[in-house]
């Protein structure tokens, strides 16, 4: 059975198609109307898979913050979808860490993959992609610069977790002539610290699958690994974990 999952996030809409054997994915910016972005994503994935737009028998499962504005066959929260998607990408992980554009979450899993517990941070920008995005504005750089911090950069610690205070701290550091790279490293460390706090609150042991928009940042991944002493695994498709999970749940 073929099944499509759409993960309608605040910044990007991710889409995945599961045909029983394979997964293909695509991504599009969410824009102002999440419903239209989701519709566009579904059209896009069908095109990519060479499926006729009106092909019958394909279920669509929606997840993410926009899941309720989209007429899907099924709606499932991003918690269950991320768990299912992460287990698919990295079998046997015991925990999922998701750091997205707007929120971050930690999901601990039963050995059979069911969700055992979860902790969400969606009230505060600290520890999310939004925090880095805000800081990038002040640093005059882009998010991708956070991914290319030269090795051996000595980190400049940032003391404030809160976006508002961190902003003035960063401006102050720049005024003192501190270079951008050490500041970027310090900001990543702050995001990592926030993630580690959530991970230790959730407890458990075993490998962690790192998903969401920030999962591609190798330095962030290494920092979390170092601080938790647990293996943190990211996957090339980890940004699509929610959409993949939705497609898999929809196929059941």
């Amino acid at each position, binding site marked *: 059975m073929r099944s499509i999952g759409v993960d309608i996030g605040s910044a990007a809409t991710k889409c995945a198609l599961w045909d029983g054997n394979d997964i293909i994915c695509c991504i599009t910016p969410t824009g102002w109307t999440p419903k239209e972005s989701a519709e566009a994503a579904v059209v896009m994935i069908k095109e990519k898979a060479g499926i006729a737009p009106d092909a019958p028998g394909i279920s669509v499962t929606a997840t993410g*913050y926009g899941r309720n504005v989209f007429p899907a066959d099924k709606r*499932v929260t991003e918690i269950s979808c991320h768990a299912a998607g992460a287990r698919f990408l990295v079998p046997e992980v015991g925990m999922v860490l998701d750091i997205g554009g707007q929120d971050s979450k930690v999901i601990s899993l039963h050995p059979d993959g069911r969700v055992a517990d979860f902790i969400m941070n969606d009230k505060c920008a600290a520890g999310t992609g939004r925090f880095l995005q805000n800081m990038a504005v002040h640093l005059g750089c882009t998010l991708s610069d956070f991914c290319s911090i030269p090795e051996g950069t000595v980190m400049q610690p940032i003391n404030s977790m809160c976006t508002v205070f961190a902003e003035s701290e960063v401006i102050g550091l720049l005024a003192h002539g501190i270079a951008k790279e050490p500041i970027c490293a310090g900001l990543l460390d702050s995001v990592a610290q926030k993630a580690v706090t959530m991970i230790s609150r959730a407890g458990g042991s075993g490998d962690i699958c790192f998903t969401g928009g920030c999962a591609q940042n190798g330095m962030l991944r290494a920092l979390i690994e170092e601080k938790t002493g647990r293996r943190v695994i990211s996957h090339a498709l980890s940004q699509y974990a929610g959409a993949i999970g939705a497609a898999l749940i929809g196929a059941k």
Partner: protein
Amino acid sequence: MRRHHGRELKEEITIRNCVEKIDELFEKMREGVRNAPVAVKELKEAGRPIVGIYCTFTPWELINAAGGIPVSLCSTSEKPIAAAEQHLPRNLCPLIKSSYGFALTDTCPYFHFCDIVIGETTCDGKKKMYELLNALRPTHVMQLPQTTEHAKSLELWKHEVIKLKEVLEERFGASITDEKLTSAIKLKNSINAAALRFYDLAALPDPVVSGKEIMLVSDYIKFTFDYEEAIANVNALTDSLLDAYKSGLRRVSASKRILITGCPMGKSLEKVVDAIEAPENSAVVVGFENCGNLKCTHYKVREDIAPLDAITEKYLSIPCSVMSPNNERIELIRHYIKKYRADGVADVILQACHTYNVESHSVRTALASDGIPYIAVETDYSQGDVGQLATRFGAFAEML
């Protein structure tokens, strides 16, 4: 075959009659809550002393025996919070801010009519708020000991109960005799018994009412001052619900049963119940281990010992998070998980409520060892987080 048919027909008629009666009673209760301010006004005009209370610890029976009308001032609206923040810090529990804000702006009819306020030294925020409240209305604060494990606690609390008795007697020119106290105890016990009988419908295998309906009945009991009428209506409702259930009616279809615990619930926190009971979750709130609900009705005032001792004992044993240690709360939660067949527990914590927030860890740990899924949400009286609540409870329901 014919006989079978006859029975079905009879059941159908029973159900139809019951449903009519149930709708009628719920409507009557809604109306009762709506008209409560008028009822208080009329009592005031009839010369009855109106006594404002905020907390489950206030001995209701003493006020009743003094001829007074205890009226709950515990507020759950966001409206007066901005005004309250002129005097109070932002980083304070919304219940305290809302309650104070209503008093400050004189926009709560109950506060407007009340002659005196009774408070207790419960949490830090509340007891300091009472100091400010005293400038707006005479406020008598009872010194609440914060443990039941010390013999001296009971002694101190009894002293405070007697002092309250004297304050009420002097203020209202009443004499609170043992006889009056005994009948006040009987009355309150029978109100609580009617409430508990209704709450206990959740002990049946299938859900009988929704969490929203439970909240309505709690509110109705809280804001009905003709106590006999309240008892009669609640009992009639329970009877009709039971009859309909026995005849096969299932009003609520939900497969996952949630017990709520935590800070006092109220109108603004209906958003939490809505998030749990959203149709796609197939979940229902089967009970509230909160103030104004099971936390007060579960415990009876003994009728076989001296009335003042009985009152002292009952009120000190309320398992609120301001008490330390507060193991009894966990036992109470466990009791109702079992009795109401709960599949999971939702801890509703108000922002900046330190006692419930800290205690959350103990509850989580205890329930984890029982294998009971648990979720804690921190919220306030604004409606800004309904989306976040929907995701949390959606995921929690998917997890069960």
